[in-house]
């Protein structure tokens, strides 16, 4: 049975990717809010913000915008999983001789694909708005890797939400604080401009180290210790979320 796990996951991933192709609005709505924020910050608020660097403001804030894109995108992951559970299709899959984990992995891979497409759209708009980087291929790959890790970590959180939600609204509501988190970080203004306790929180929450790493990679600056703090957070969240998601899944199917 397990030797079919990969094939089954592939078939089921194809199914949920087809869902996205049939309702591309889920990708567009995921990209619209970050793009609107980007326009607002660059053309309205950005002129008054002193980042303390020579970088253009869009270069400064793009990393945070990308994280917001992913944080809002994973709400759809929870939503799609929840709808499968609500309808009978989940039970049909569970009563069939297919690898049980493939049902979850299909949603995770779909989430990864959909979010990467949204991220590419947002980067495209940023380029039009004047975002420039001289980052090498290696630096781009590093940025891609960090964004993939971030998506996976949040996706497994979304799986917990999707499995345990009682209503459709509940399934996606968990993403609101995640979308808000970058605002209390170094994503839009330097943390040094914040009052003491807020600055402390901002400096010690995961988003800041991730944003600083991506920003340094784009600006061809040394990433310093930020990258290790970022990776520790990402891997930590991923492992904990995965463990809880599997527990929630076991409870659901037994």
């Amino acid at each position, binding site marked *: 049975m397990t030797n079919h796990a990969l094939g089954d996951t592939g078939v089921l991933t194809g199914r949920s990717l087809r869902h996205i192709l049939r309702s591309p609005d889920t990708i567009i709505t995921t990209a619209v809010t970050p793009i609107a924020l980007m326009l607002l910050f660059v053309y309205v608020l950005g002129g008054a913000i002193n980042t303390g660097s020579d970088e253009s403001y869009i270069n400064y804030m793009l990393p945070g915008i990308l994280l917001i894109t992913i944080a809002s995108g994973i709400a759809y992951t929870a939503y799609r999983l929840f709808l499968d559970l609500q309808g*009978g299709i989940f039970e049909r*899959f569970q*009563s069939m001789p297919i690898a049980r984990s493939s049902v979850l992995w299909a949603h995770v891979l779909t989430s990864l694909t959909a979010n990467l497409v949204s991220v590419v759209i947002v980067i495209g708009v940023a380029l039009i708005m004047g975002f420039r980087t001289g980052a090498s291929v290696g630096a781009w790959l590093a940025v891609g890797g960090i964004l993939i890790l971030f998506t996976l970590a949040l996706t497994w959180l979304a799986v917990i939400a999707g499995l345990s939600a009682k209503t459709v609204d509940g399934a996606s509501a968990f993403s609101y604080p995640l979308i808000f988190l970058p605002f209390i970080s170094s994503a839009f203004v330097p943390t040094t401009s914040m009052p003491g306790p807020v600055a402390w929180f901002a400096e010690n929450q995961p988003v800041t180290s991730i944003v600083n790493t991506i920003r340094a990679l784009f600006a061809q600056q040394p990433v310093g210790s930020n990258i290790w703090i970022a990776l520790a957070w990402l891997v930590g969240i991923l492992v904990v979320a995965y463990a809880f998601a599997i527990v929630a899944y076991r409870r659901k199917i037994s």
Partner: protein
Amino acid sequence: MIAEPAIQVRGIEKSFKDVQVLRGVDFDVKAGSIFALLGSNGAGKTTLVRILSTLLKADAGTATVHHFDVAAKPGDVRESISLTGQFAAVDEVLSGRENLVLIAKLRHLKDPGAIADDLLARFSLTEAGSRKAATYSGGMRRRLDIAMSLIGNPPIIFLDEPTTGLDPQARIEVWQTIKKLADSGTTVLLTTQYLEEAEQLADRIAILHKGTIIQNGTLTELKQLLPPAKVEYVEKQPSLEDVFLALVGDTGETDTTANDDRPDGTVAPRKESR
């Protein structure tokens, strides 16, 4: 081998928190027969079906399906069964054909496209095959649901309230489908709250009440439990169902209303079958 029942249930118990839903259920289902589990809402029918289809674990008792213990060999049980749950388990975003192809691929069968086309034809869904399942009527959705369950020819099929929420025509269509299934040798366990459905379809009927089987027998046996029939003269009034079916035509073809220009005669044989 032949004498051994396709489904054997012994002393199954199941509680949810303080509520004891099943209090020791026993019955056998003969291979190739239609077995109806009759009971009102909340009698425990769905819980029992979920246990037999490995979705739920029993607290006590044993059950074998196709000679495999549901608790010890759930993988083998899943290879031998198909479940059509209470709510049509179709993917609404996909077309009817894509739904069938999906299940055929998940059952690792060769040529999923041909399997899908064959089932679409058998269930008079060829025309609707490329439409999203979300646009289907209740009866069509149920037919697609059952068609999905037949992929891979599982020897045992569970149908949990297959006609709940369907209009009379669609119900007759589903009945015809189930009869055909049993004729081809599939063992069918169906749950229903409609007495007429059990009467129409089942070789054996078990009445599940408050978590136990209170009666189990053929229709004739069950009828003998009551005092012998008296002869009374009653003016025969057509039932509302008779009137309804006479007015709209008793063919049970709900999807032809949308597509009157059906080019082939795929539905013709079913029209005379009642």
